[in-house]
């Protein structure tokens, strides 16, 4: 454990580290075992979701803003994927959302570009049922990391106690018949 009680700056740092890389906040606080568990338990659903859904539609705020918001719980991963989404392929995130919503058709593009866009729509866009599984995995990955961030902040503030330590203490006092 790093130290009994951290300063506000250290608490914020633990939270930001956990947001950038799952488990990094705990690692920095000295909880190496928990850091490894959190890293695997958040990274697995997140990168699993990316592998199943691909970045083009799965990390795209113009296609599904609520999913993107949930994914931002794992801020470092999501930002990386969003940058990848922007720079790879012929169709940008906003344009892809317009095409998928049917507000514009591929026929409105010149021939040479239409071929590239059609190729991208068939090769890089996930459809049902893969898109559903990817969304669930990514949303769970992002939201689980919010818990991890809260836990890192709580452990920094209390000198190592978990985020739900009041609940754990209450359960312990019920079993022993007194306050712990």
């Amino acid at each position, binding site marked *: 454990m790093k130290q009994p009680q951290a300063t506000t700056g250290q608490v914020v740092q633990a939270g930001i580290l956990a947001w950038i890389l799952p488990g990094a906040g705990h690692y920095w606080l000295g909880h190496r075992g928990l850091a490894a*568990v959190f890293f695997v*338990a*958040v990274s697995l*659903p997140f990168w699993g979701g990316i*592998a199943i859904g691909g970045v083009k539609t799965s990390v795209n705020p113009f296609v599904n803003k609520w999913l993107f918001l949930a994914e931002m719980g794992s801020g470092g991963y999501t930002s990386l994927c969003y940058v*990848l989404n922007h720079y*790879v392929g012929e169709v940008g995130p906003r344009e892809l959302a317009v095409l998928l919503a049917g507000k514009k058709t591929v026929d409105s593009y010149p021939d040479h570009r239409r071929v590239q866009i059609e190729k991208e729509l068939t090769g890089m866009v996930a459809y049902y049922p893969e898109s559903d*599984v990817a969304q669930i995995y990514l949303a*769970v990955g992002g939201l689980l990391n919010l818990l991890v961030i809260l836990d890192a902040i709580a452990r920094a503030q209390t000198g190592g*106690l978990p985020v739900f330590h009041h609940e754990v203490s209450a359960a312990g006092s019920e079993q022993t018949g007194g306050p712990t």
Partner: protein
Amino acid sequence: MNLLPDELLGMLFLHPLKLPAGARLWMFLPLAMCIAAVYRGTRARTARELPRATVLTFIHIVIGMILIALAAYALHALVLWWS
């Protein structure tokens, strides 16, 4: 299969993987295990407490989900029977 690094990255992050038929249901299990690990992790003082508690929570989640599925199926069958 010899893949170049960019091909491997493209396969992993750009081109969606195809799930085998029937795999969707089983995708629930690793997700439930991750949820159990994080849930228990936020209640543990050290990582040593985690394995047993995580497995127990995982079993609870799976049993709970099976019961919910059975209840939903029963309700669905009942509605079909009534109509």
